[in-house]
């Protein structure tokens, strides 16, 4: 007996039924043991190391990451590295190689990243050593994530806490297409009680 299925094709009813049943009998494995929990944990962990640190604009970029990553890698390999200049940024003075903080003081240190062209998927790594820490990252010496830099000036405000008296370094590293630019700012943490005595 023949009929018309919902695609409009003439098929033998029995044949269509038989084929469909055969497809449904095909074995399909369940996820391997532990896969569900591992996959959920990875999704949350990925967000902690990227999205949670990033503004919404970069978060949206990351959601597209998987789509364009392959093409971007190819394109980046062929392109010349753009000149990136990093310097500590202070709107009232010339760039300072050194900054002074009072013990326990929290201050935003602005880092200006000038890029001659747009850089997709640059890796930004921030490290704080010695007497200073990044506010909110007490147990981690460095934090890195990926972001796209616009052509021109990109300003990154880093909250730094002066934990102990002495010297510290705030280091910013930008990596793109196998090239790296690094700048270190020295910070001196002063304990007012000690300096008065």
């Amino acid at each position, binding site marked *: 007996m023949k009929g018309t299925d919902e*695609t409009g094709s003439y098929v033998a009813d029995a044949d269509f039924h038989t084929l469909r049943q055969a497809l449904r009998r095909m074995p399909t494995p369940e996820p391997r043991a532990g896969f569900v929990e591992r996959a*959920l944990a990875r*999704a949350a962990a990925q967000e*902690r190391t990227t999205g949670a640190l990033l503004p919404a604009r970069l978060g949206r970029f990351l959601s597209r990451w998987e789509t364009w990553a392959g093409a971007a890698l190819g394109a980046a390999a062929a392109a010349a590295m753009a000149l990136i200049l990093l310097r500590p940024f202070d709107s009232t003075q010339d760039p300072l190689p050194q900054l002074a903080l009072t013990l326990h003081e929290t201050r935003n240190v602005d880092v200006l990243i000038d890029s001659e062209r747009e850089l997709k998927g640059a890796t930004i790594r921030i490290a704080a050593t010695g007497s200073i820490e990044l506010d909110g990252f007490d147990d981690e010496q460095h934090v890195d994530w990926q972001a796209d830099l616009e052509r021109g000036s*990109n300003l990154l405000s880093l909250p730094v806490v002066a934990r102990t008296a002495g010297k510290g370094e705030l280091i910013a590293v930008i990596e793109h297409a196998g090239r790296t630019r690094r700048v270190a700012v020295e910070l001196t943490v002063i304990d007012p009680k000690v300096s008065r005595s």
Partner: protein
Amino acid sequence: MQRMAWLKRTASRTAETSDAVEFARLLRDHIPAFYRAAYRWTGAVDRAEDLVQQLLLRLYPRLAELRELDQIRPWALRVMYRIFIDQLRRERSSPVQFGADPVVDDDVAAGEDEAWLDPGPGPQELSERELTQERVLRAWEQLGEEHRVVLAMHDIEDYTLPELAQIMEIPLGTLKSRLHRARARLRELLAEERMVAADRV
């Protein structure tokens, strides 16, 4: 000037934990179904796991949207389908390719030209005895990925054509055409399997 905001982790840690718990609560029960679909589409355990992992990575930042959904599964399947298609396109443009029949869509709504759509005489009369699991599996593995998707979703998982058109984001006519071609191709492959089996006898 682009200001790149820096969010304090201390302020967000508690929220991250509760977000992870809620994300797991919303998705956990659906993951086996996503996995089964991914396995049927890809035909391999590793690729299925990778596809589901990519899906979860894509969904986590969209937790706010997930909370508002009445039906998570079709929405998530649509996202997974887009990821899968993107992967296929990259694989097809790379020197190393996975074997697949290229999908040739014809936007003619199936049923408008029944003579053209009728696969004609040939491998239609399939007996249950002939459709051994082994033969069906071999034919399935030879199908193009996009044919597998439409057959898996419609003929195995019972999504309706309108639902499937939404998931795959293609017009209904194109979908009907693709489903028809997928079935016809599967019949061809099964017929080839039948001939191979006859040669072996």
